[in-house]
């Protein structure tokens, strides 16, 4: 069986190789962070939780089996921790108030990757920002499994079979989830796309 490079790295991690672990962290920090951020809508909390996901990966390294793709295993852990956080916030609603995005200049905060302002006119930028706000709202309104499926497709280009494993459902159910999510997104964004 041919291992993918991540699996080989993870096998090194199982032998306490910290350099291999750091390589995996650097590679996956962004998709994990964005997947979590889209679920809890708080950049600071998303960063903390993402870091905890990787710490959990380290703690669970002995239980990793190379029969599973590393990314599937990682995103399953990330999803479970994210669901736990969402449940915790549901039990303690005071914690779920979205904090304003802080001005991140000290390197300790996550920052938005914004497009080059010189590439578009101010009007185009305003329309684009409005569309992105609508995308965020539409995504936040999706059921958790639909949102997770779309994020795995977008950030990691994960095959349907792997998404099915992360969502713990069949391949046909996964295809249905993806289709419904996209149809909802299309319906929600239709007025803004036409304009």
């Amino acid at each position, binding site marked *: 069986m041919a291992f993918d490079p991540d699996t080989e790295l993870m096998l090194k991690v199982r032998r306490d190789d910290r350099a291999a672990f750091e390589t995996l962290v650097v590679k996956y920090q962004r998709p994990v962070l964005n997947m979590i951020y889209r679920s809890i809508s708080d950049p600071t909390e998303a960063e903390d939780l993402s870091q905890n996901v990787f710490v959990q990966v380290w703690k669970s390294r002995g239980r990793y089996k190379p029969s599973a793709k590393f990314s599937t295993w990682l995103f399953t852990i990330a999803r479970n921790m994210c669901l736990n956080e969402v449940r915790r916030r549901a039990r303690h609603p005071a914690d779920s108030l979205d904090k304003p995005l802080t001005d991140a200049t000290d390197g300790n905060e996550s920052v938005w990757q914004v497009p080059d302002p010189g590439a578009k006119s101010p009007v185009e930028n305003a329309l684009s920002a409005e569309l992105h706000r609508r995308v965020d709202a539409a995504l936040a309104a999706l059921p958790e499994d639909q949102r997770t499926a779309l994020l795995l497709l977008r950030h990691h280009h994960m095959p349907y079979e792997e998404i099915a494993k992360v969502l713990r459902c069949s391949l046909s159910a996964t295809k249905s989830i993806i289709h419904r999510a*996209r149809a909802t997104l299309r319906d929600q964004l239709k007025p803004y796309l036409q304009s």
Partner: protein
Amino acid sequence: MNCTQFQAEFDRLLDGQLDARTSESLRAHLANCPDCAAAWGGYEGAWAAFASAPELEPSSNFAARVMSGIERVERELPARVWSFPRLARWFAPVTAALALFAAATGIWTHYESDADQTASQELVVNLPVVQHLDLLNDLDIIANLDRLAPPPEHDPIEEMMSALWNS
């Protein structure tokens, strides 16, 4: 390919999960069907808007903070050896082992006491006074003298003592 079949393949077409021949066939249908072209436009446009939305960029020290997090975990690990979750994990098997041990000890003790009883019987049987009482044909009575209730009408011990006294 009809419109229903075409629209059923929207997702796989968007995700590049179709073979070249099927993709080509779908594109050909798209070029000749205004309804499907409109449906595809909305579907593809929404996905493009989603895909172009800005991403959150991890902080520059993200990996460093994770690495210091695992350092902390490693340092705390020995102190947590006897933490409650670990004890809870061992509680069931240890309890089961203790129960088995107790059961085995009980059985052993039971047989051991039977062996003691047999030895006591042999000791009693060999006593001259007991032989004198002629009770050797009922070892159970000898072994369980203290448990017999009510006491026998003719207490052999008392009779023996009386006989000795009278003589």
